C-alpha cells in the first residue's frame, strides 16, 4: 500500500494529446494540480513558491490558443515546476539560502525556462532545492514516507512529481541531484549529456558537470520532457532494431555495499530486457568507478570554490556550514592539481567509452539503499556520480519498492550525445513491457 501522499500526475504525451484535441482544458488541468498542492504542501513542502493566479491566467491563454489552432509546442498547457536555483521571470530565486531571503523577483527567464515556455509549458512555481544545490538540506519530504529524505539537491522537483502536484519538473545535476531524487521518490528523470542543454540563468556549482534534467512519472514522461526542449539531436524519435542494441550491465567494485533489494532490481531488469529479445551481457568496467568518483569530487570542489566564492562576502551565519566549508576547501586547490585531475578524468572517459560500441545501453544500480530516514542527509550519491563524471545521458528508472516500502531502481545510461538514442530505447521498452511503465500504486 502506497502512502496517500504519492499520486501519479499523468502521462505527459497523453495530457498533451487531450489538450491538443480539445478534450482536456488546460484550466481544469492546472486547477487539479493546485488542489493537489493545497492538499499536500503542508506535509511534503515540495514547493518553495508558486503563483496560482498567474498559472490560471496562462492556462486560459493556452486554452484560447488551442481554440485558435495555435499549439505552441509539445508542452502546450502542461504545468511545470522549476528548481529554485533556476531563474524564471516573475518568481524569486532564493537558492534556499538565508542570504537571499529578500531578493527581488527574476526579471528574465533562464535558457531552459525560456525553452519550456516556447514549447507551451506553464510555469507553476519553484520547487525546493538544497542550498545552492549542495548538501545543506531543503525542507522537502519524501511522499512515500515524509520521515525520509526525497534526496537532493533537486529535492522538491522530485517530490513535487511523486506527490502528483505537477506532471513535469526541472532540476539540475552536478553529482546525483537529478537521478537520485527520482529513484528515492519512485519516479523517473532524464539527465542529458553534460553541457548539451543551456545552463544560462542557472546558479553554477561545478560547470563541468552542471546540467538541467527533467522529471516525470515514468521513463516515457522523463524522455518526453527532454525531447520537448532538446534542439541538437538529429536522430528521429523511432523504434529501435533490437539486434542493433547492445545492453551491458556494468560490474564494478564500487557496488560491493549494494542492498540485496536493489541488486534484485538489476537482475529483474536484465531478465525483462532478455524477455523483450535484447542481447544483455555483463562486463567489468574498464575504469575503476572509485577513481571516477575521486576525480569528479576534486573537480567539483575546485569549481564550486571558484564559482561560489562570492558567498564569502555574506555574513557566515547566513550560509550553510557544508556549503561554506566546500567553498573554502575548493579555494585551497591549485589550478595545476585541478588541470591534472581533469586530464585524468578525460582519459578515463575515453578509455571507458572506447571499450563499448556506440549503440550500447548501460545498466547500473542507482543507489545502494532506498532513501534514508531524516532530512539532514540527502542520501548516497556514489553510484550515480561516476556516471555524471562520464558525462553521458542518464535515465533513472524506478522499478519497485524495498522491504520498507521505499522505492528503488536502476540507471539506464548511454554514450555522450546519444541522448535521443537512449530516449528511443526508453520509449521502446516502455511501450513493450509493463515493467518499465513506472511504479504501480
Amino acid at each position, binding site marked *: 500500500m502506497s502512502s496517500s501522499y504519492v499520486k501519479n500526475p499523468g502521462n505527459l504525451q497523453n495530457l498533451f494529446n487531450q489538450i491538443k484535441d480539445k478534450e482536456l*482544458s488546460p484550466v481544469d488541468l492546472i486547477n487539479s494540480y493546485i488542489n493537489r498542492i493545497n492538499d499536500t504542501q503542508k506535509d511534503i513542502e515540495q514547493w518553495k513558491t508558486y503563483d496560482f493566479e498567474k498559472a490560471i491566467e496562462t492556462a486560459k491563454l493556452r486554452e484560447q490558443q488551442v481554440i485558435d489552432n495555435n499549439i505552441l509546442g509539445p508542452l502546450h498547457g502542461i504545468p511545470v515546476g522549476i528548481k529554485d536555483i533556476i531563474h524564471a521571470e516573475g518568481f524569486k530565486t532564493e537558492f534556499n539560502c538565508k542570504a537571499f531571503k529578500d531578493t527581488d523577483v527574476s526579471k528574465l527567464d533562464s535558457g531552459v525556462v525560456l525553452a519550456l515556455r516556447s514549447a507551451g509549458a506553464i510555469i507553476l512555481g519553484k520547487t525546493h532545492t538544497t542550498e545552492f544545490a549542495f548538501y545543506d538540506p531543503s525542507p522537502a519530504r519524501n511522499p512515500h514516507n515524509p520521515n525520509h529524505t526525497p534526496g537532493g539537491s533537486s529535492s522538491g522537483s522530485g517530490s513535487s512529481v511523486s506527490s502528483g502536484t505537477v506532471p513535469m519538473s526541472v532540476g539540475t545535476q552536478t553529482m546525483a541531484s537529478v537521478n537520485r531524487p527520482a529513484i528515492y521518490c519512485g519516479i523517473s528523470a532524464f539527465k542529458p549529456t553534460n553541457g548539451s542543454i543551456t545552463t544560462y540563468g542557472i546558479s553554477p556549482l561545478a560547470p563541468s558537470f552542471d546540467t538541467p534534467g527533467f522529471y516525470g512519472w515514468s521513463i516515457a514522461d522523463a524522455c518526453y520532457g527532454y525531447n520537448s526542449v532538446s534542439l541538437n539531436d538529429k536522430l528521429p524519435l523511432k523504434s529501435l532494431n533490437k539486434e542493433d542494441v547492445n545492453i551491458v550491465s556494468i560490474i564494478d567494485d564500487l557496488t560491493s555495499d549494494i542492498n540485496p533489494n536493489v541488486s534484485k532490481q538489476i537482475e529483474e531488469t536484465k531478465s525483462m530486457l532478455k524477455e523483450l529479445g535484447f542481447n544483455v551481457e555483463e562486463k567489468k568496467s574498464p575504469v575503476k568507478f572509485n577513481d571516477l568518483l575521486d576525480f569528479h569530487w576534486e573537480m567539483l570542489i575546485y569549481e564550486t570554490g571558484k564559482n561560489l566564492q562570492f558567498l564569502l562576502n555574506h555574513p557566515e551565519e547566513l550560509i550553510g556550514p557544508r556549503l561554506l566549508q566546500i567553498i573554502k576547501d575548493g579555494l585551497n586547490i591549485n589550478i595545476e592539481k585541478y588541470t591534472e585531475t581533469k586530464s585524468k578524468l578525460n582519459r578515463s572517459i575515453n578509455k571507458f567509452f572506447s571499450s563499448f560500441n556506440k549503440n550500447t545501453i548501460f545498466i547500473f544500480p542507482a543507489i545502494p539503499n532506498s532513501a534514508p530516514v531524516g532530512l539532514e542527509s540527502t542520501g548516497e550519491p556514489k553510484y550515480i556520480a561516476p556516471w555524471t563524471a562520464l558525462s553521458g545521458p542518464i535515465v533513472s528508472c524506478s522499478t519497485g519498492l524495498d522491504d520498507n516500502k521505499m522505492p528503488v531502481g536502476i540507471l539506464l545510461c548511454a554514450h555522450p550525445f546519444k541522448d535521443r538514442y537512449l530516449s528511443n530505447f526508453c520509449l521502446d521498452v516502455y511501450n513493450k513491457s509493463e515493467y518499465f511503465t513506472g511504479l504501480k500504486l
Partner: protein
Amino acid sequence: MHLEIKNLHTYYGLVHMLKGVSLNVNEGEIISILGRNGAGKTTTIKSIMGLAPSSEGSVILKGEEITNFEPHEVAKKGISFVPASRGIFSTLTAYENLKIFHLKHSKWNIEDVFKLFPKLEKLKFRNGNSLSGGEQQMLAIGRSLVINPSVIMLDEPSQGLAPMIVEDVKEMLLKLKKEGMSIILVEQNLQTALDVADRVYILDQGEIVFEGKSEELSKNKKLTLKFLGVST
C-alpha cells in the same frame, strides 16, 4: 441492448473527465452524444475503445464485458472507431487504405463498401493525400466497415466539411443504420445530430445531463441553449 456503458469514470492526469457516464445503444440505432468542448464526448468513446482506460464502470457488448480491453481487442470484438483526424494513410490509395484493414471473415468486403458508397469506388486509385475532407471522411467510414463491426463510433464526422458534404455523410450514416449497424455519433453540430439520431445524450462536465429522443431535444430550446450554447 447491443452496447451498454455503465457508470464510467475516466481521469486525464488528476482531472476527473467522466463522472459516471451511462448510456446504451440498440441494434440498428443511431445515438448522438452532444456537448461543448471538453465536456467528455470524445473521452467517452475513447474509453469505450480502450484508448482512455477508465478507473471504474463497465463496457458491455452483446452481454460480454469488454471494459479496458486493448483497442485492437475491442475492434476484434466488433466496435470500430472513426477518429476526428480520420487517420487516412496519405501515400496509399483509397483501395489500399481499405485493403490493409480488411479482415477475411468480415461480412463487409471492399466491393460491398463500394456498392454502399458508389462515390468511393470512383476514387479508389487516388492517394489519400489527394482526397478532399469529405472524401477522406467517406473513406474513413468505409474503412471502419471492413473490420466487421456491429457498432461504429464516429468522432465529429461533419467537422470541417462543406454543408453539402455533411448531407452526404448523413446519408451514409442512415444507409448503415438500415443495414442494422449500431452507431454512436459524437457531434458538436446539433442539427446534424438531430437529423440522423434516434436518441440523444448531452454531456456536460463529464456527466450526462440529458437523455431522450431527438424530437424531445429539438423542442427544448432552454436545454440546448444552456448546455450547447445554441438554439434549435
